[in-house]
């Protein structure tokens, strides 16, 4: 069994798992990275990346057969022909809903790093302090200063484009040149800045789409195809495949094992340490044991917690980390799908060239500085402006040459934006094991019991109202506010369920992402989040993972693990 012994095991190969594998293997550890799904090789397996719209027999529409296979996915945009097969099989991997929860999962090497929105923002100082100040949930065990150098570190490697905007609410980082705002966005940005006397800003989105190449990593800058979700043959955006996996492979220290469902973390209750993991081979159903000195759990927020719940159950009924009473609790997401849009007059002699895979961003301004609302925390907006394409509204036209001519020319400019709001951690919002339902491999599934509450509902009113107010203040007419309604999970930013904290009685992880009851087990994906902020979370998972990996290796050397 010697070849089943490693220094470190990483469970999961998505954004945070890839970082764990890279950092640990670069520091000389022999690493095994386990992925429950199939392998996807960079470039070679991006089968749709060079297809054009007309190469898809259903022109990207979901078929009725697809909808039967994916009853959850079909609730929103992710079910389509171009990315079909890239989301977890819902029949083989069911879950149950006490309340509606849309869970979009990527079960393959790279996970959702191939399917993410790529917007990359730092949490700010206040984000790490607000829980403590406002007596919400528990205080983060770390402060901005603890993570700032790690943000620098991961931004530099991942390649984040953005401007240094000099705003406390959205700390600047190590950026490549930003993707530009277009002429209409710039104009509206200037008007908003003036109207709100510099208290509200429309800035370039900060995205992991690169504007400069990284030849040293074999990565080309973004080519503005906006086909990111088909896998980028240029390596133009950060994914496990384009970035962390090649770096980890280069060390010669990494073994990647796809089709490996980690069933439980093996726990030595006398030493209070994990000793390895037990794995089911997803193809053969055979069980394997792999041993290691440390385990990094990066299975995506809910599956990381699922794994803890299924581990050391002979010691704790609720599993490893459940002694706090918080394992599975404090589910968070970002609530969104509310905002405003407006037609923009003028700029008839302007258009855009290239398909920019990003847009503008409006950093949080509510409950910031002197602003006080009847709810806590805040929200940001993501949006963009552009001219209508062929599907613009020309309801007055019938059929024939006139219709064709009108549709073949661009329409008027419009601008729109959607709010992304912070969801408070709440003990009542939880996931738990539903042992009555099992997956294809006989493993118990997760049950979801999550809802947005009063604070979020109050905030949503502002999210719509403020968006309208900003566009109107910029001089736009016929501004339309909208709320397309939100169900938890739709943000695909699920967080919490194994939070970091200062006290083992109220948190699952300590300030270095170690499970209090098993210090050689680190959880560094979305599960660890103590609060959600309102910014897109993936960059923070990268930074926390790199920080924890560095700490883990030091602790190993000191003989503490």
């Amino acid at each position, binding site marked *: 069994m010697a070849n089943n012994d490693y220094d470190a095991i990483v469970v999961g190969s998505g954004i945070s798992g890839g970082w764990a594998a890279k950092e640990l293997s670069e520091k000389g550890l022999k690493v095994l990275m386990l992925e429950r799904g199939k392998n996807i090789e960079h*470039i*070679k397996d991006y*089968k*749709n*990346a*060079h*297809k*054009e719209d007309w*190469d898809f*027999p*259903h*022109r990207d*529409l*979901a*078929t*009725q057969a697809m909808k039967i296979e994916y009853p959850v996915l079909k609730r929103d945009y992710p079910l389509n022909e171009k990315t079909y097969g890239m989301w977890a099989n819902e029949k083989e991997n069911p879950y149950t809903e006490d309340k509606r929860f849309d869970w979009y999962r990527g079960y393959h090497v790279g996970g959702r790093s191939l399917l993410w929105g790529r917007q990359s923002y730092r949490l700010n100082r206040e984000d790490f302090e607000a829980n403590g100040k406002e007596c919400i949930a528990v205080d983060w065990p770390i402060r901005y200063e603890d993570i700032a150098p790690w943000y620098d570190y991961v931004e530099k490697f991942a390649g984040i484009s953005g401007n240094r905007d000099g705003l406390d609410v959205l700390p600047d980082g190590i950026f490549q040149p930003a*993707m*530009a*705002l*277009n*002429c209409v*966005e*710039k104009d509206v940005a200037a008007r908003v800045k003036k109207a709100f006397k510099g208290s509200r800003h429309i800035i370039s989105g900060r995205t992991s789409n690169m504007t400069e*190449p990284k*030849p040293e990593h*074999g*990565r*080309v*800058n973004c*080519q*503005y*195809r906006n086909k990111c979700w088909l896998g980028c*043959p*240029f390596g133009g955006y950060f994914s496990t495949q384009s970035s962390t996996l090649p770096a980890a492979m280069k060390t010669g220290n990494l073994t990647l094992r796809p089709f490996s469902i980690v069933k439980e973390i093996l726990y030595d209750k006398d030493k209070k340490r994990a000793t390895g993991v037990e794995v089911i081979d997803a193809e053969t159903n055979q069980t394997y044991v792999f041993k290691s000195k440390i385990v990094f759990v990066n299975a995506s927020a809910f599956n990381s917690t699922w794994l803890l719940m299924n581990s050391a159950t002979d010691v704790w009924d609720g599993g490893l980390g459940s002694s706090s009473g918080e394992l599975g609790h404090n589910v968070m997401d970002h609530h969104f799908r509310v905002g405003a849009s407006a037609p923009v007059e003028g700029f008839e*002699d*302007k*258009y*855009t*060239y*290239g*398909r*920019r895979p990003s847009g503008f961003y409006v950093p949080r301004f509510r409950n910031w500085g002197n602003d006080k609302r009847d709810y806590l925390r805040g929200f940001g907006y993501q949006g963009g402006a552009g*001219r209508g*394409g*062929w*599907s613009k*509204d020309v*309801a007055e036209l*019938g*059929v*024939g*040459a006139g*219709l*064709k*001519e009108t*549709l*073949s*020319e*661009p*329409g008027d400019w419009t601008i729109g934006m959607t709010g992304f709001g912070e969801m408070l951690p709440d003990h009542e919002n939880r996931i738990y094991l539903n042992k009555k339902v099992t997956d294809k491999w006989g493993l118990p599934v997760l049950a979801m019991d999550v809802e947005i509450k009063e604070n979020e509902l109050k905030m949503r009113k502002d999210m719509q109202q403020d968006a309208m107010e900003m566009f109107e203040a910029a001089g736009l007419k016929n501004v339309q506010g909208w709320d397309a309604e939100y169900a938890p999970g739709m943000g695909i930013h699920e967080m919490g369920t194994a939070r970091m904290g200062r006290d083992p009685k109220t948190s699952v992880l300590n300030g270095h992402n170690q499970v209090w009851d098993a210090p050689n087990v680190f959880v560094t994906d979305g599960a660890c989040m103590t609060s959600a902020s309102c910014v897109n979370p993936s960059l923070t998972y990268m930074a926390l993972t790199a920080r924890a990996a560095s700490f883990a290796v030091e602790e190993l050397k000191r003989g503490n693990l």
Partner: protein
Amino acid sequence: MQRRDLLKLIATATGTMMVGGQALAYDLVQPVPLSDTGFSKDEVALLNEMGEVILPKTDTPGAKEANVGATMAVLVADCYTPVLQKTFKQGLLDINKRCKEAYGNEFLLLSAEQRTALFNTLDTEAKAANLAKGLSANLEMSRPNHWEPGDAAPAPHYFTLLKQLTLYCFFTSKVGATKVLRYVAIPGYYDGDFPYKKGDKAWAT
């Protein structure tokens, strides 16, 4: 970055030349055979003729050249709900009935003027019918299965379905996207202040 340097870098990164040439990593989707759609060759030809009335050949190609009928058959067969399928197919029968009532001939034997006149009439009727059912006025511009009726919800007028399918299948086709609209596979950069003069085509995507 110069194009030449870009190509060199891509070649280094991937081991294959990914831009242009024969080495593109295409994995062509198998087309859905017509026999799997329940539509006959004649019906596809009829759909092409109908599409051509909605988007005719002008100084640029029309619906027939894009073979929209073949794609429409696949989308109706695979993407439509039974309710939409039934509405669409009965609509085709109704069109021929209307042709005979108005002109004493079936659709394929009508002149171009007669076809256009009939479709404009149907278009007006469809818009009124949808409005009466409380459906969106701009339905014909949305994706063909974006909206689906539950058992209780009213289906849109069949002509709206025909028009929606024609527009979608045409503008997502190679002919529509590259000869009627503009399309650049690999733009390479972004210009948010790109000059435009009246008559310039819209981007396909």
